[in-house]
């Protein structure tokens, strides 16, 4: 197992989202609210989704956790707001592929999210990075 230097993991954009999370707080009214956690480390996440038909018009989160889980959730909310269910799901799947060490697909679409790629070298942290995305996938199944 070769480690990169920490700069690869703690990229500036990640630290930025951790220090200043976007879309943090309750979303009211909302259509879906999900609470999920990472049992191994205690990271907790509450995700709020609001739909207009098939479109995801509101996304917000609350939670406690490490920089990777919180930054990843914050970046996610920014990226998926405005997408439709299908697009959001595709993006979540791309991220999961990236975390499995595969090619994520269209890199341009991912934008900042590519900064999460460094996590792949830290297997135990992958679950942190995916907490938000897995919760999103569950939430999308509940679109009213």
């Amino acid at each position, binding site marked *: 197992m070769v480690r990169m230097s920490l700069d690869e993991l703690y990229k500036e954009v990640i630290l930025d989202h951790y220090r200043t999370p976007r879309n943090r707080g309750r979303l009211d009214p909302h259509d879906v609210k999900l609470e999920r956690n990472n049992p191994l*480390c*205690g990271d907790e996440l509450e995700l709020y989704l609001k739909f207009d038909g098939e479109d995801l018009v509101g996304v917000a989160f609350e939670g406690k956790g490490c*920089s990777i889980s919180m930054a990843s959730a914050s970046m996610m909310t920014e990226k998926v707001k405005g997408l439709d269910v299908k697009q959001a799901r595709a993006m979540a799947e791309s991220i999961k592929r990236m975390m499995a060490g595969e090619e994520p697909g269209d890199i341009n679409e991912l934008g900042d999210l590519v900064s999460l790629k460094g996590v792949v070298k830290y297997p135990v*942290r992958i679950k942190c990075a995916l907490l938000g995305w897995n919760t999103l996938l569950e939430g999308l199944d509940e679109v009213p």
Partner: protein
Amino acid sequence: MSLDPEVVRKDFPIFETRMRGKRLVYLDSANTSQKPRQVIERIVEFYEHENANIHRAVYELAERSTAAYEGARAKCAHFIAAPSPRSIVFTRGTTESINLVRYSWARANVREGDEVLVTEMEHHSNLVPWQLLTQESGATLRHLPVTDDGMLRMDLLGDYITDKTKLVCVGLMSNVLGTINPVRQLADAIHAMGGLILVDAAQAAPHMPVDVSELDADFLAFSSHKMCGPTGAGVLYGRERLLEEMPPFHGGGEMIREVFADHSTWNEIPHKFEAGTMNIAQAVGLGAAVDYLHSLGMDSVRAHEMELTAYALERLNAVGAEVHGPSDVDQRGGAISFNVADVHPHDLATIVDQEGVCIRAGHHCAQPLMRRLGVPATARASLYIYNTREDVDVLMGALEQAKGWFA
């Protein structure tokens, strides 16, 4: 006789491994300990010269393996000052030992309306089995609270230990707070009510002298892998009278006396509880670990850890970490949980890992205690015989770096 950790360290081959070119600073012994050459070699010797199934066969190889296995049992009995090897049941570890008591003793003795008392600082392995038992039996599970400094609320004992209490389940040393609990006092209180006490010595046995008679324990559990022994082994001590009355745990070979088509009679203790082929080489390895610890002296082990814990607490306070649990090293062992402002324990662990430092981050299998402490997770550094001041210094340097990242 005082213990020189730099000398001890040489017994542990893993410290010859360098982590990314750096000295391996292993501060996670409360999770699992490293293994000395003496233990590894004993296991190899067993497989190369003594390997055979025990008790069952008449040839010489089987005599050797049986002698090695039963010899290990006698060593374990001696280690905790148990009156007889008959009171020592080999298991996979503390968790299985506790679940054995749940399935065998407690299913037969705990009824609806009875109470089982645990503490707010128990490891999941000494909590979840009692949740499952009380749910199944209709008994009530109660939790003895913990003070803000991480001590048991002994002042509440009168409310929590009553004639309804059938069993008290308590850790002798907390894996999160380090707290050494006043187990003898709890034993006296529950015995006065006619109940029993089960002592989780997973953290205590590796780090301090343990004497079942002094503790007046009815059951006591510990794990090999935390005390220099192999994984896959552990002990349940039980009073002989109790073990004799208890129904068997697993059914299978070796634990029987006679088997008929529809019923069976049981072997004598402790064999009644050792069904099937046991973890023979692991028990033998545990015996070697006991020898190893004896050669250092458990008093010296404890003295070394007290000194090093005092040093680590001082340094952690100096860097402004919030340390959980007692600050007096007389009242605690070397498992030290802490939080560093602005740096999540997970990030802390990842960053110090870059410096070759192994610490643990998370809930340490004690989620209810985390809620009590009001933190989602802590970082934990835990000390053992091979740790030095230098190890603590390296950790401190790494903590400073971590603070830098999130400043």
